[in-house]
Protein backbone atom coordinates (compact mmCIF):
# COMPACT_ATOMS: atom_id res chain seq x y z
CA UNK A 1 0.00 0.00 0.00
CA UNK A 2 1.38 3.37 -0.99
CA UNK A 3 1.51 5.89 1.85
CA UNK A 4 1.67 9.69 1.78
CA UNK A 5 4.70 10.47 3.89
CA UNK A 6 5.76 13.84 5.33
CA UNK A 7 9.52 14.32 5.46
CA UNK A 8 10.87 16.64 8.18
CA UNK A 9 14.64 16.96 7.81
CA UNK A 10 16.83 20.05 8.05
CA UNK A 11 19.82 18.74 6.12
CA UNK A 12 19.21 19.43 2.44
CA UNK A 13 21.08 16.46 0.99
CA UNK A 14 19.55 14.02 3.46
CA UNK A 15 16.09 15.45 2.82
CA UNK A 16 16.49 14.81 -0.90
CA UNK A 17 17.78 11.32 -0.24
CA UNK A 18 14.73 10.63 1.96
CA UNK A 19 12.46 11.76 -0.84
CA UNK A 20 14.19 9.33 -3.18
CA UNK A 21 14.07 6.50 -0.67
CA UNK A 22 10.40 7.06 0.08
CA UNK A 23 9.67 6.93 -3.65
CA UNK A 24 11.87 3.86 -4.11
CA UNK A 25 9.90 2.11 -1.35
CA UNK A 26 6.75 2.70 -3.35
CA UNK A 27 5.40 5.54 -1.25
CA UNK A 28 4.65 9.15 -2.04
CA UNK A 29 6.52 12.10 -0.48
CA UNK A 30 3.75 14.33 0.81
CA UNK A 31 6.04 17.26 1.40
CA UNK A 32 9.42 18.35 2.63
CA UNK A 33 9.81 20.57 5.71
CA UNK A 34 13.29 21.71 6.71
CA UNK A 35 12.46 24.13 9.55
CA UNK A 36 10.12 23.87 12.53
CA UNK A 37 7.45 26.46 11.52
CA UNK A 38 7.10 24.84 8.12
CA UNK A 39 6.93 21.37 9.69
CA UNK A 40 4.25 22.43 12.21
CA UNK A 41 2.16 23.89 9.44
CA UNK A 42 2.46 20.86 7.17
CA UNK A 43 1.78 18.43 10.03
CA UNK A 44 -1.42 20.33 10.72
CA UNK A 45 -2.73 20.78 7.18
CA UNK A 46 -1.36 18.10 4.84
CA UNK A 47 -3.19 14.88 4.18
CA UNK A 48 -0.76 12.34 5.67
CA UNK A 49 -0.46 8.61 6.31
CA UNK A 50 2.90 8.76 8.05
CA UNK A 51 5.79 11.14 8.92
CA UNK A 52 9.57 10.85 9.25
CA UNK A 53 10.88 13.35 11.81
CA UNK A 54 14.42 14.59 12.23
CA UNK A 55 14.76 15.45 15.92
CA UNK A 56 16.87 18.60 15.64
CA UNK A 57 15.70 21.19 13.11
CA UNK A 58 18.48 23.78 12.88
CA UNK A 59 18.67 23.94 16.67
CA UNK A 60 14.96 23.50 17.42
CA UNK A 61 13.45 20.19 18.52
CA UNK A 62 10.70 18.62 16.44
CA UNK A 63 8.59 17.23 19.34
CA UNK A 64 5.80 19.82 18.85
CA UNK A 65 5.38 18.33 15.38
CA UNK A 66 5.06 14.87 16.93
CA UNK A 67 2.39 16.26 19.25
CA UNK A 68 0.28 17.47 16.32
CA UNK A 69 0.69 14.16 14.47
CA UNK A 70 -0.25 12.27 17.64
CA UNK A 71 -3.43 14.31 17.93
CA UNK A 72 -4.27 13.71 14.29
CA UNK A 73 -3.56 9.99 14.64
CA UNK A 74 -0.77 10.07 12.07
CA UNK A 75 1.94 7.50 12.85
CA UNK A 76 5.54 8.74 12.76
CA UNK A 77 9.12 7.64 13.27
CA UNK A 78 12.25 9.55 14.29
CA UNK A 79 15.45 9.75 12.27
CA UNK A 80 18.38 11.11 14.23
CA UNK A 81 22.15 11.29 14.41
CA UNK A 82 21.89 11.25 18.21
CA UNK A 83 21.03 8.02 19.99
CA UNK A 84 17.57 7.38 21.37
CA UNK A 85 18.83 9.35 24.43
CA UNK A 86 17.97 12.47 22.46
CA UNK A 87 14.28 11.54 22.35
CA UNK A 88 12.00 13.23 24.90
CA UNK A 89 10.22 11.10 27.50
CA UNK A 90 6.71 10.75 25.96
CA UNK A 91 8.23 9.42 22.70
CA UNK A 92 10.99 7.16 24.08
CA UNK A 93 9.24 3.96 22.97
CA UNK A 94 8.73 5.17 19.39
CA UNK A 95 10.60 3.79 16.41
CA UNK A 96 13.95 5.52 15.86
CA UNK A 97 16.34 5.05 12.96
CA UNK A 98 19.87 6.30 13.35
CA UNK A 99 21.61 8.22 10.60
CA UNK A 100 23.13 7.17 8.36
CA UNK A 101 20.53 4.53 7.51
CA UNK A 102 19.99 2.21 4.54
CA UNK A 103 16.94 1.86 2.31
CA UNK A 104 16.17 -1.43 4.11
CA UNK A 105 16.34 0.25 7.56
CA UNK A 106 13.90 2.90 6.43
CA UNK A 107 11.55 0.39 4.79
CA UNK A 108 11.38 -1.79 7.90
CA UNK A 109 10.83 1.23 10.14
CA UNK A 110 7.99 2.51 7.93
CA UNK A 111 6.37 -0.94 7.91
CA UNK A 112 6.59 -1.21 11.71
CA UNK A 113 5.06 2.21 12.27
CA UNK A 114 2.35 1.76 9.63
CA UNK A 115 1.33 -1.68 10.90
Amino acid at each position, binding site marked *: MSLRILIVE*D*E*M*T*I*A*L*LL*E*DMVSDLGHEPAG*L*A*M*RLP*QALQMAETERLDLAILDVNL*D*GRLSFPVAEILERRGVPFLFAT*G*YGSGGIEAPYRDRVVI*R*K*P*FSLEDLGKAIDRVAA
Partner: protein
Amino acid sequence: MSADAGPDAPVPSPDFPHGGGDLGALIRAFDWSTTGLGPIVGWPQSLKTVTNTLLLSPVPIVLLWGEDGVMIYNDAYSVFAGRRHPRLLGSKVREGWPEVADFNDHVMKVGLGGGTLAYKDQELTLNRHGGPEQVWMNLDYSPVPDESGRPAGVIAIVIETSERMRAERRQEEALDRVRQSEARFRALVNATSDVVYRMSADWLEMKALDGRGFLSDTETPSIRWMDEYLFPEDQAAIWGAISDAIEARGVFQLEHRVRQADGAAGWTSSRAIPLMGAGGEIVEWFGAASDITARREAEQHLRLVINELNHRVKNNLAMTQAVAAQTFRNAGSITDAQHSLSSRISALAQANDLLTGARGAAVSMTGVLDQATRPHYPSPERRRIEGPDFSLSPKTALSMSLAMHELSTNALKYGAWSGQDGVVEICWSIYPPERGGPERLKLVWTEHGGPRVAEPSRRGFGTRLIERGLAAEMGGVVQMRFEPEGLVCVIDAPLTVYAEEGAA
Protein backbone atom coordinates in the same frame (compact mmCIF):
# COMPACT_ATOMS: atom_id res chain seq x y z
CA MET B 1 82.83 -8.43 127.96
CA SER B 2 84.08 -6.45 131.04
CA ALA B 3 84.17 -2.66 131.19
CA ASP B 4 87.84 -2.53 131.96
CA ALA B 5 89.01 -4.69 129.17
CA GLY B 6 91.87 -2.76 127.52
CA PRO B 7 93.96 -2.93 124.32
CA ASP B 8 96.58 -4.99 126.04
CA ALA B 9 94.04 -7.72 126.65
CA PRO B 10 93.48 -8.62 123.01
CA VAL B 11 90.33 -10.59 122.59
CA PRO B 12 89.69 -12.05 119.16
CA SER B 13 86.33 -10.93 117.99
CA PRO B 14 85.08 -13.65 115.79
CA ASP B 15 81.63 -12.61 116.98
CA PHE B 16 81.80 -9.17 115.38
CA PRO B 17 79.80 -8.13 113.69
CA HIS B 18 76.81 -10.15 114.81
CA GLY B 19 74.81 -11.42 111.89
CA GLY B 20 74.65 -8.86 109.11
CA GLY B 21 74.00 -11.27 106.26
CA ASP B 22 76.67 -12.12 103.66
CA LEU B 23 78.55 -8.93 104.33
CA GLY B 24 78.55 -9.65 108.07
CA ALA B 25 80.28 -12.96 107.35
CA LEU B 26 82.73 -11.34 104.89
CA ILE B 27 83.62 -8.62 107.38
CA ARG B 28 84.24 -11.21 110.09
CA ALA B 29 86.50 -13.21 107.79
CA PHE B 30 88.31 -10.21 106.29
CA ASP B 31 91.91 -9.53 107.27
CA TRP B 32 91.53 -5.93 108.33
CA SER B 33 95.21 -5.71 109.33
CA THR B 34 95.93 -5.05 105.63
CA THR B 35 93.94 -1.80 105.90
CA GLY B 36 94.34 1.43 107.79
CA LEU B 37 91.64 0.19 110.19
CA GLY B 38 93.71 -2.64 111.61
CA PRO B 39 92.21 -5.82 113.06
CA ILE B 40 88.64 -5.58 114.26
CA VAL B 41 89.70 -5.99 117.87
CA GLY B 42 91.33 -2.59 117.69
CA TRP B 43 88.31 -0.80 116.16
CA PRO B 44 86.84 2.04 118.18
CA GLN B 45 83.33 1.48 119.43
CA SER B 46 82.00 4.22 117.19
CA LEU B 47 83.20 2.31 114.11
CA LYS B 48 81.70 -0.94 115.37
CA THR B 49 78.38 0.68 116.17
CA VAL B 50 78.04 2.26 112.78
CA THR B 51 79.14 -0.99 111.09
CA ASN B 52 76.55 -2.99 112.96
CA THR B 53 73.88 -0.44 112.23
CA LEU B 54 74.49 -0.35 108.48
CA LEU B 55 74.60 -4.11 108.23
CA LEU B 56 71.06 -4.24 109.63
CA SER B 57 69.69 -1.78 107.06
CA PRO B 58 67.89 -2.97 103.95
CA VAL B 59 68.94 0.30 102.25
CA PRO B 60 72.33 0.34 100.47
CA ILE B 61 74.74 2.01 102.87
CA VAL B 62 78.51 2.36 102.71
CA LEU B 63 80.80 3.66 105.41
CA LEU B 64 84.00 5.42 104.32
CA TRP B 65 86.32 5.39 107.33
CA GLY B 66 89.39 7.46 107.91
CA GLU B 67 91.23 9.85 105.56
CA ASP B 68 91.38 7.11 102.91
CA GLY B 69 87.68 6.31 103.17
CA VAL B 70 88.12 2.57 103.72
CA MET B 71 84.88 0.96 102.61
CA ILE B 72 82.54 -1.10 104.78
CA TYR B 73 79.09 -1.79 103.33
CA ASN B 74 76.02 -3.98 103.59
CA ASP B 75 74.34 -6.60 101.40
CA ALA B 76 72.15 -4.06 99.66
CA TYR B 77 75.21 -2.01 98.65
CA SER B 78 76.96 -5.15 97.35
CA VAL B 79 74.16 -5.55 94.85
CA PHE B 80 74.63 -1.96 93.76
CA ALA B 81 78.42 -2.51 93.50
CA GLY B 82 78.00 -5.31 90.97
CA ARG B 83 81.25 -7.05 90.01
CA ARG B 84 83.22 -4.52 92.05
CA HIS B 85 82.05 -6.51 95.05
CA PRO B 86 83.68 -8.20 97.00
CA ARG B 87 87.03 -6.55 96.13
CA LEU B 88 85.50 -3.24 97.14
CA LEU B 89 85.31 -4.31 100.80
CA GLY B 90 88.16 -2.75 102.76
CA SER B 91 89.47 -0.81 99.76
CA LYS B 92 90.09 2.94 99.71
CA VAL B 93 87.12 4.67 98.10
CA ARG B 94 89.24 6.68 95.61
CA GLU B 95 90.86 3.43 94.42
CA GLY B 96 87.73 1.27 94.62
CA TRP B 97 85.83 3.64 92.32
CA PRO B 98 88.64 5.16 90.26
CA GLU B 99 86.21 6.50 87.61
CA VAL B 100 84.56 8.77 90.21
CA ALA B 101 87.66 9.43 92.35
CA ASP B 102 87.30 13.21 92.11
CA PHE B 103 83.69 13.05 93.18
CA ASN B 104 84.55 10.92 96.21
CA ASP B 105 87.54 13.09 97.04
CA HIS B 106 85.13 15.99 97.40
CA VAL B 107 82.77 13.85 99.48
CA MET B 108 85.57 12.87 101.88
CA LYS B 109 86.79 16.42 102.31
CA VAL B 110 83.31 17.77 103.03
CA GLY B 111 82.30 14.85 105.28
CA LEU B 112 85.47 14.82 107.34
CA GLY B 113 85.05 18.58 107.60
CA GLY B 114 81.75 17.93 109.37
CA GLY B 115 79.52 18.83 106.43
CA THR B 116 76.74 16.87 104.77
CA LEU B 117 75.99 16.37 101.08
CA ALA B 118 72.80 15.36 99.37
CA TYR B 119 72.40 14.60 95.69
CA LYS B 120 69.16 13.79 94.00
CA ASP B 121 69.26 11.74 90.79
CA GLN B 122 72.96 12.38 90.49
CA GLU B 123 74.18 11.14 87.14
CA LEU B 124 77.43 9.14 87.26
CA THR B 125 79.25 6.84 84.90
CA LEU B 126 80.28 3.70 86.80
CA ASN B 127 82.12 0.59 85.73
CA ARG B 128 80.31 -2.07 87.70
CA HIS B 129 79.68 -4.81 85.16
CA GLY B 130 82.75 -4.75 82.92
CA GLY B 131 81.88 -1.61 80.95
CA PRO B 132 80.99 2.02 81.53
CA GLU B 133 77.40 2.50 82.50
CA GLN B 134 75.33 5.58 83.00
CA VAL B 135 73.56 5.55 86.35
CA TRP B 136 71.53 7.89 88.49
CA MET B 137 71.52 7.92 92.26
CA ASN B 138 70.14 9.68 95.27
CA LEU B 139 73.20 10.16 97.49
CA ASP B 140 73.18 11.31 101.13
CA TYR B 141 76.48 11.79 102.94
CA SER B 142 76.81 12.49 106.66
CA PRO B 143 79.91 12.65 108.86
CA VAL B 144 80.38 9.92 111.49
CA PRO B 145 82.14 11.14 114.65
CA ASP B 146 84.51 8.94 116.62
CA GLU B 147 84.79 8.79 120.41
CA SER B 148 86.43 12.20 120.44
CA GLY B 149 83.45 13.72 118.64
CA ARG B 150 85.47 14.60 115.52
CA PRO B 151 84.38 13.27 112.14
CA ALA B 152 86.30 10.07 111.47
CA GLY B 153 84.31 8.78 108.54
CA VAL B 154 81.48 9.47 106.14
CA ILE B 155 78.37 7.35 105.86
CA ALA B 156 76.63 7.27 102.52
CA ILE B 157 73.11 6.12 101.81
CA VAL B 158 73.08 5.16 98.15
CA ILE B 159 69.75 4.70 96.42
CA GLU B 160 69.99 3.98 92.75
CA THR B 161 67.31 5.71 90.69
CA SER B 162 68.59 4.59 87.29
CA GLU B 163 65.57 2.49 86.50
CA ARG B 164 63.10 5.26 87.31
CA MET B 165 65.27 7.78 85.47
CA ARG B 166 65.50 5.55 82.39
CA ALA B 167 61.76 5.02 82.45
CA GLU B 168 61.24 8.75 82.78
CA ARG B 169 63.68 9.40 80.00
CA ARG B 170 61.97 6.83 77.74
CA GLN B 171 58.65 8.41 78.51
CA GLU B 172 60.04 11.85 77.76
CA GLU B 173 61.46 10.62 74.44
CA ALA B 174 58.17 8.98 73.57
CA LEU B 175 56.37 12.19 74.41
CA ASP B 176 58.86 14.05 72.30
CA ARG B 177 58.19 11.75 69.36
CA VAL B 178 54.47 12.26 69.85
CA ARG B 179 55.00 16.03 69.96
CA GLN B 180 57.08 15.89 66.78
CA SER B 181 54.53 13.67 65.09
CA GLU B 182 51.80 16.06 66.18
CA ALA B 183 53.80 18.98 64.79
CA ARG B 184 54.30 17.17 61.48
CA PHE B 185 50.59 16.38 61.36
CA ARG B 186 49.72 20.06 62.00
CA ALA B 187 52.13 21.07 59.26
CA LEU B 188 50.57 18.60 56.86
CA VAL B 189 47.06 19.79 57.65
CA ASN B 190 48.16 23.39 57.15
CA ALA B 191 50.15 22.65 54.01
CA THR B 192 47.40 20.76 52.20
CA SER B 193 44.62 22.61 50.44
CA ASP B 194 42.33 19.65 51.13
CA VAL B 195 39.33 19.78 53.37
CA VAL B 196 40.16 17.84 56.56
CA TYR B 197 37.46 16.19 58.65
CA ARG B 198 36.86 13.87 61.62
CA MET B 199 33.83 11.63 62.03
CA SER B 200 32.54 9.53 64.91
CA ALA B 201 33.04 5.75 64.67
CA ASP B 202 29.53 5.27 63.24
CA TRP B 203 29.68 8.44 61.06
CA LEU B 204 26.49 9.74 62.64
CA GLU B 205 28.34 12.68 64.09
CA MET B 206 30.84 14.96 62.42
CA LYS B 207 33.37 15.99 65.02
CA ALA B 208 35.01 18.73 62.98
CA LEU B 209 35.60 19.84 59.42
CA ASP B 210 38.01 22.46 58.14
CA GLY B 211 36.42 23.53 54.87
CA ARG B 212 39.27 25.58 53.38
CA GLY B 213 36.81 28.00 51.81
CA PHE B 214 35.53 25.20 49.57
CA LEU B 215 33.06 23.92 52.18
CA SER B 216 31.70 25.67 55.25
CA ASP B 217 33.53 24.85 58.52
CA THR B 218 32.16 22.63 61.26
CA GLU B 219 33.86 23.56 64.53
CA THR B 220 31.66 21.80 67.08
CA PRO B 221 30.33 18.23 66.73
CA SER B 222 27.24 18.06 64.54
CA ILE B 223 24.75 15.31 63.70
CA ARG B 224 23.28 17.48 60.93
CA TRP B 225 26.34 17.25 58.71
CA MET B 226 24.59 15.27 55.96
CA ASP B 227 22.05 17.99 55.32
CA GLU B 228 24.75 20.61 55.65
CA TYR B 229 27.11 19.16 53.04
CA LEU B 230 25.15 16.70 50.87
CA PHE B 231 22.20 17.16 48.56
CA PRO B 232 19.18 15.04 49.57
CA GLU B 233 19.21 13.03 46.33
CA ASP B 234 22.88 12.00 46.85
CA GLN B 235 22.68 11.04 50.51
CA ALA B 236 21.55 7.42 50.11
CA ALA B 237 24.35 6.49 47.70
CA ILE B 238 27.04 8.19 49.78
CA TRP B 239 25.75 6.59 52.98
CA GLY B 240 25.94 3.24 51.19
CA ALA B 241 29.66 3.73 50.56
CA ILE B 242 30.17 4.84 54.18
CA SER B 243 28.36 1.75 55.51
CA ASP B 244 30.54 -0.48 53.35
CA ALA B 245 33.68 1.16 54.76
CA ILE B 246 32.44 0.81 58.36
CA GLU B 247 31.60 -2.85 57.82
CA ALA B 248 34.94 -3.58 56.14
CA ARG B 249 36.75 -1.42 58.74
CA GLY B 250 38.66 -0.18 55.72
CA VAL B 251 39.22 2.98 53.74
CA PHE B 252 36.27 5.12 52.71
CA GLN B 253 36.89 6.54 49.26
CA LEU B 254 34.38 8.22 46.98
CA GLU B 255 33.99 11.00 44.45
CA HIS B 256 30.71 12.69 45.16
CA ARG B 257 28.77 15.92 44.92
CA VAL B 258 28.85 18.38 47.80
CA ARG B 259 27.15 21.62 48.69
CA GLN B 260 29.90 24.23 48.58
CA ALA B 261 30.30 27.05 51.07
CA ASP B 262 28.53 29.36 48.62
CA GLY B 263 25.62 26.89 48.30
CA ALA B 264 26.46 25.81 44.75
CA ALA B 265 26.97 22.16 43.81
CA GLY B 266 30.59 21.05 43.66
CA TRP B 267 32.48 17.79 43.42
CA THR B 268 34.92 16.30 45.89
CA SER B 269 37.22 13.31 46.06
CA SER B 270 36.95 12.19 49.66
CA ARG B 271 39.02 9.61 51.51
CA ALA B 272 38.87 8.65 55.18
CA ILE B 273 40.60 6.03 57.30
CA PRO B 274 39.43 4.50 60.58
CA LEU B 275 41.53 5.20 63.69
CA MET B 276 41.59 2.12 65.93
CA GLY B 277 41.65 2.02 69.71
CA ALA B 278 43.80 -0.30 71.85
CA GLY B 279 41.10 -3.00 71.69
CA GLY B 280 40.96 -2.85 67.89
CA GLU B 281 37.66 -0.99 67.88
CA ILE B 282 37.17 2.02 65.58
CA VAL B 283 37.54 5.19 67.62
CA GLU B 284 36.94 7.72 64.88
CA TRP B 285 37.49 8.37 61.19
CA PHE B 286 39.93 10.87 59.82
CA GLY B 287 39.46 12.10 56.28
CA ALA B 288 40.64 14.49 53.61
CA ALA B 289 38.61 15.75 50.67
CA SER B 290 39.89 17.64 47.65
CA ASP B 291 37.94 20.00 45.43
CA ILE B 292 37.61 18.33 42.01
CA THR B 293 34.77 20.55 40.80
CA ALA B 294 36.76 22.05 37.94
CA ARG B 295 37.95 18.61 36.81
CA ARG B 296 34.43 17.17 36.87
CA GLU B 297 33.10 20.14 34.92
CA ALA B 298 35.86 19.71 32.35
CA GLU B 299 35.03 16.01 32.08
CA GLN B 300 31.35 16.77 31.66
CA HIS B 301 32.11 19.38 29.02
CA LEU B 302 34.37 16.92 27.24
CA ARG B 303 31.59 14.32 27.24
CA LEU B 304 29.23 16.85 25.68
CA VAL B 305 31.83 17.74 23.08
CA ILE B 306 32.43 14.07 22.28
CA ASN B 307 28.68 13.44 21.96
CA GLU B 308 28.33 16.44 19.71
CA LEU B 309 31.33 15.38 17.66
CA ASN B 310 29.89 11.90 17.32
CA HIS B 311 26.63 13.42 16.17
CA ARG B 312 28.35 15.63 13.64
CA VAL B 313 30.37 12.74 12.27
CA LYS B 314 27.19 10.68 11.88
CA ASN B 315 25.48 13.59 10.25
CA ASN B 316 28.35 14.16 7.87
CA LEU B 317 28.37 10.49 6.95
CA ALA B 318 24.61 10.65 6.36
CA MET B 319 25.13 13.67 4.09
CA THR B 320 27.96 11.94 2.25
CA GLN B 321 25.75 8.89 1.86
CA ALA B 322 22.94 11.09 0.52
CA VAL B 323 25.22 12.85 -1.95
CA ALA B 324 26.75 9.56 -3.11
CA ALA B 325 23.39 7.84 -3.53
CA GLN B 326 22.03 10.67 -5.62
CA THR B 327 25.19 11.14 -7.62
CA PHE B 328 25.08 7.51 -8.73
CA ARG B 329 21.34 7.59 -9.30
CA ASN B 330 21.67 10.45 -11.80
CA ALA B 331 25.06 9.69 -13.34
CA GLY B 332 25.54 9.12 -17.07
CA SER B 333 28.56 6.86 -16.48
CA ILE B 334 30.69 5.51 -13.66
CA THR B 335 33.50 7.91 -14.61
CA ASP B 336 31.11 10.85 -14.46
CA ALA B 337 29.80 9.64 -11.12
CA GLN B 338 33.31 9.26 -9.69
CA HIS B 339 34.25 12.73 -10.79
CA SER B 340 31.05 14.35 -9.52
CA LEU B 341 31.14 12.51 -6.23
CA SER B 342 34.69 13.45 -5.37
CA SER B 343 34.05 17.05 -6.36
CA ARG B 344 30.90 17.16 -4.24
CA ILE B 345 32.64 15.61 -1.25
CA SER B 346 35.34 18.30 -1.61
CA ALA B 347 32.60 20.93 -1.64
CA LEU B 348 31.09 19.41 1.50
CA ALA B 349 34.50 19.41 3.17
CA GLN B 350 35.13 23.04 2.24
CA ALA B 351 31.70 24.08 3.42
CA ASN B 352 32.50 22.30 6.66
CA ASP B 353 35.57 24.51 7.01
CA LEU B 354 33.23 27.48 7.09
CA LEU B 355 31.38 25.90 9.97
CA THR B 356 34.25 24.74 12.10
CA GLY B 357 34.14 27.85 14.24
CA ALA B 358 32.20 27.63 17.46
CA ARG B 359 28.87 25.89 17.09
CA GLY B 360 26.25 28.42 16.12
CA ALA B 361 28.80 30.87 14.78
CA ALA B 362 27.33 32.90 11.97
CA VAL B 363 28.81 32.74 8.48
CA SER B 364 28.80 35.67 6.08
CA MET B 365 26.84 35.51 2.80
CA THR B 366 29.74 36.96 0.81
CA GLY B 367 32.15 34.49 2.39
CA VAL B 368 29.98 31.52 1.46
CA LEU B 369 29.54 32.60 -2.17
CA ASP B 370 33.22 33.38 -2.59
CA GLN B 371 34.41 30.17 -1.02
CA ALA B 372 32.03 27.93 -2.99
CA THR B 373 32.79 29.43 -6.43
CA ARG B 374 36.50 30.24 -6.05
CA PRO B 375 37.79 26.70 -6.77
CA HIS B 376 35.98 26.62 -10.13
CA TYR B 377 36.35 29.95 -11.93
CA PRO B 378 39.08 30.16 -14.60
CA SER B 379 40.18 33.64 -13.44
CA PRO B 380 38.96 36.13 -10.81
CA GLU B 381 37.68 38.69 -13.32
CA ARG B 382 35.27 36.12 -14.75
CA ARG B 383 33.26 36.10 -11.57
CA ARG B 384 31.47 39.14 -10.15
CA ILE B 385 30.05 39.06 -6.67
CA GLU B 386 27.98 41.96 -5.45
CA GLY B 387 25.47 42.42 -2.66
CA PRO B 388 25.01 43.56 0.92
CA ASP B 389 26.64 41.22 3.39
CA PHE B 390 24.66 39.56 6.19
CA SER B 391 24.92 36.52 8.44
CA LEU B 392 23.59 33.07 7.54
CA SER B 393 22.92 30.21 9.91
CA PRO B 394 25.49 27.42 9.57
CA LYS B 395 22.82 25.17 8.13
CA THR B 396 21.71 27.64 5.47
CA ALA B 397 25.35 28.40 4.71
CA LEU B 398 25.99 24.72 4.04
CA SER B 399 23.02 24.41 1.68
CA MET B 400 23.91 27.64 -0.09
CA SER B 401 27.48 26.49 -0.42
CA LEU B 402 26.48 23.15 -1.99
CA ALA B 403 24.05 24.88 -4.37
CA MET B 404 26.76 27.33 -5.48
CA HIS B 405 29.12 24.41 -5.99
CA GLU B 406 26.59 22.77 -8.30
CA LEU B 407 26.07 25.98 -10.27
CA SER B 408 29.84 26.48 -10.54
CA THR B 409 30.59 22.97 -11.79
CA ASN B 410 27.75 23.28 -14.27
CA ALA B 411 29.18 26.61 -15.51
CA LEU B 412 32.59 25.04 -15.88
CA LYS B 413 31.27 22.00 -17.77
CA TYR B 414 28.61 23.54 -19.99
CA GLY B 415 28.25 27.25 -19.25
CA ALA B 416 30.06 30.58 -19.04
CA TRP B 417 33.29 29.20 -17.61
CA SER B 418 33.59 26.43 -20.23
CA GLY B 419 34.80 28.82 -22.96
CA GLN B 420 37.39 31.60 -23.13
CA ASP B 421 35.44 34.72 -22.17
CA GLY B 422 32.22 33.86 -20.34
CA VAL B 423 31.42 35.62 -17.08
CA VAL B 424 29.24 34.69 -14.10
CA GLU B 425 27.55 37.46 -12.14
CA ILE B 426 26.22 36.77 -8.68
CA CYS B 427 24.20 39.73 -7.49
CA TRP B 428 21.80 39.96 -4.61
CA SER B 429 19.71 42.57 -2.89
CA ILE B 430 17.41 42.86 0.08
CA TYR B 431 13.99 44.38 -0.60
CA PRO B 432 10.71 44.97 1.24
CA PRO B 433 7.85 42.88 -0.18
CA GLU B 434 4.99 44.76 -1.90
CA ARG B 435 2.39 43.49 0.56
CA GLY B 436 4.45 44.21 3.64
CA GLY B 437 5.90 41.55 5.96
CA PRO B 438 9.52 40.58 6.50
CA GLU B 439 12.22 41.67 4.08
CA ARG B 440 13.17 39.34 1.27
CA LEU B 441 16.39 38.29 -0.36
CA LYS B 442 16.71 38.07 -4.12
CA LEU B 443 19.83 36.49 -5.55
CA VAL B 444 20.42 36.19 -9.27
CA TRP B 445 23.11 33.99 -10.84
CA THR B 446 23.57 35.11 -14.44
CA GLU B 447 25.92 33.62 -17.00
CA HIS B 448 26.94 35.35 -20.23
CA GLY B 449 29.51 35.00 -22.96
CA GLY B 450 29.48 31.23 -22.92
CA PRO B 451 28.24 28.77 -25.53
CA ARG B 452 24.58 28.88 -26.44
CA VAL B 453 22.49 27.05 -23.90
CA ALA B 454 19.70 24.58 -24.44
CA GLU B 455 17.21 23.30 -21.89
CA PRO B 456 18.62 19.96 -20.61
CA SER B 457 16.60 16.90 -21.48
CA ARG B 458 16.52 15.74 -17.86
CA ARG B 459 17.09 17.36 -14.47
CA GLY B 460 20.19 16.07 -12.67
CA PHE B 461 20.95 15.98 -8.96
CA GLY B 462 22.56 19.43 -9.07
CA THR B 463 19.42 20.99 -10.53
CA ARG B 464 17.23 19.18 -8.06
CA LEU B 465 19.45 20.21 -5.17
CA ILE B 466 19.15 23.85 -6.19
CA GLU B 467 15.51 24.02 -7.24
CA ARG B 468 14.04 21.78 -4.61
CA GLY B 469 16.59 21.53 -1.80
CA LEU B 470 17.68 25.13 -1.58
CA ALA B 471 14.10 26.36 -2.04
CA ALA B 472 12.97 24.23 0.91
CA GLU B 473 15.99 25.24 2.92
CA MET B 474 15.32 28.94 2.45
CA GLY B 475 11.55 28.67 2.48
CA GLY B 476 11.34 30.45 -0.88
CA VAL B 477 11.34 29.91 -4.60
CA VAL B 478 14.33 28.93 -6.71
CA GLN B 479 14.05 29.00 -10.44
CA MET B 480 16.53 27.93 -13.11
CA ARG B 481 16.06 29.35 -16.60
CA PHE B 482 18.17 27.91 -19.39
CA GLU B 483 18.21 30.98 -21.63
CA PRO B 484 20.20 30.86 -24.88
CA GLU B 485 22.76 33.52 -23.69
CA GLY B 486 23.33 31.66 -20.48
CA LEU B 487 21.82 30.07 -17.40
CA VAL B 488 19.91 32.34 -15.03
CA CYS B 489 19.14 31.10 -11.50
CA VAL B 490 16.91 33.26 -9.31
CA ILE B 491 16.53 32.68 -5.61
CA ASP B 492 13.73 34.61 -3.93
CA ALA B 493 13.19 33.90 -0.24
CA PRO B 494 12.38 35.59 3.06
CA LEU B 495 15.52 37.13 4.50
CA THR B 496 16.58 35.30 7.60
CA VAL B 497 19.46 37.16 9.16
CA TYR B 498 21.02 34.78 11.58
CA ALA B 499 21.41 36.09 15.09
CA GLU B 500 24.22 34.35 16.93
CA GLU B 501 23.18 32.20 19.86
CA GLY B 502 23.20 34.17 23.03
CA ALA B 503 23.07 37.49 21.20
CA ALA B 504 20.32 39.91 22.27
